């Protein structure tokens, strides 16, 4: 049974740019542990004769022609943005990068 440590949760939080408090880390570590346990149970029943599956449909090569389709107007695209400026999405500065 793979357990997930509090440190691993903290690492994932950092990658996800989430700031988690000590209590939240404990809480989420326990929850993620349950989820991983449930997935591990599925792995137990997968025998060697069952290939790993990433997609339930027996389909390949679903493609579209290279033809332009109208999308959203800039107003529509930005309508749900918490902040916009110069017709662009405005986001807080990125910390700890580059």
């Amino acid at each position, binding site marked *: 049974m793979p357990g997930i440590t509090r440190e691993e949760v903290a690492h994932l939080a950092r990658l996800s740019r989430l700031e988690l408090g000590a209590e939240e880390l404990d809480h989420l570590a326990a929850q993620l542990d349950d989820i991983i346990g449930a997935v591990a149970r599925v792995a137990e029943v997968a025998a060697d004769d069952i290939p790993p599956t*990433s*997609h339930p449909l027996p*389909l*390949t*090569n679903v*493609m579209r022609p290279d033809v332009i389709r109208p999308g959203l107007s800039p107003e529509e695209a930005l309508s749900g943005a918490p902040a916009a*400026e110069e017709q662009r999405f405005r986001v807080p*500065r990125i910390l700890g990068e580059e």
Partner: protein
Amino acid sequence: MSTTSLMSYEDALETYDPVMGLEVHVELGTATKMFCGCSTEFGAEPNSQVCPTCLGMPGALPVVNAVAVESAIRIGLALNCNIAEWCRFARKNYFYPDMPKNFQTSQYDEPIAFEGYLDVQVEGKTWRVEIERAHMEEDTGKSLHMGGATGRIHGADYSLLDYNRCGIPLIEIVTKPIEGAGELAPLVAKAYVAELRELIRALGVSEARMELGQMRCDANLSLRPKGREKFGTRSETKNVNSLRSVERAIRFEIQRHATVLTDGGTIVQETRHFHEDDGSTTAGRIKEEAEDYRYFPEPDLVPVAPSREWVEELRATLPELPSLRRARLQAEWGVNDFEMQSMVNAGVLDVILATIDAGAHADAARKWWLGELSRRANERGVEVATLPITAAQVARVAALVESGELNDKLARQVIDGVLAGEGEPDAVVEARGLKVVSDDSALGAAVDEAIAANAGIADKIRGGKVQAVGALVGAVMKTTRGQADAARVRELILERLGVS
């Protein structure tokens, strides 16, 4: 670390053996994005070419662009790669605002093309660069960093995002480690990127203009002490965007690594930024490990399984490869390596061929594009092929010179006129009155005048010193403002002086 405190390049190569890895991203020239039907047109209003899919809205589903897959396969074939019989897309998870989905749809352990090579010429020798893989992915949005001093991320208060570029198809081409190049390493890197660019253009899958970001190179470099097998720690210099910069970045990193290692320091695995102004690099972020990207198969896209028939059909569409074409043209034109390389570097092979197709002699076509027009392009700081003159117009100028209606000097003025937007060559000749004057009656007066004004020289010629005629021809050319037919002038002078 500045360029001045570095160990010299020669000293670095005394002790260390460089190993390179080059990752080149090519933006495909498809009409639409990789996974949605938004236009890829360059230079549109911000956020005017977006839709729920490329904005990463919940519930939006991607569908693969068939032409992008076709282009990827053709690139793979041209690089002598195997084409996967079956492959999937994968999610590369990272949180950064240029990617609104919070993951980039890429390929991980199942690239569409793998195990190939590209031969490049370096100092007259052929170098085989092994290709590890070429895979499909999508471009990111563009960030503007606001506030702070310089528009760079450092000190920025906030960022503005335009997602028009987000989702444009990219092919990432990754080499295997390039070993054994020694002091030639920077030149091998440059030659590889140059050859790849030619190949991409010949395939017609992208214009691959580095200055527009249509082709970008990440240069990995590590050093190991000479004689050691194991690779050293590498750095990855991101977004090196010209051929010259590729060479400079590798050279700088060789010197920087050697300086750090010789001082007993360690190289950190990190990304670095290249600076055009002084050719140096500075530290970027510490590189995330592949596992931090938590790659997993993209559940919203079905696998791509190109049939062998399709692959063979695409193989049949491959153009003559640039290296073979160069060899063929060099033999046909009978030019030396240096002249051929000059034409390749100036990017004029295609326009020369088009000019020949339009009726010009190969010699004349080469002469105009490599000489006068390359010079004009340099003056304007643009690529020759983008000058506002067509191959047909150059062919017409060459024809006018061939028939004797223009001499070279007048032809250059005609080219001036065409470049200035004065219309077709014939219209420029007409409007500027540039025809060569070879009519004897029109030239006679000028010839007589020149003889009268240079009696001493005329006597010498009468006395048998025929080579002195050049001075008199020059005088006539001057009075006729260069429009006289110099050959005819010479004949007329000699006739009048009774020595012909």
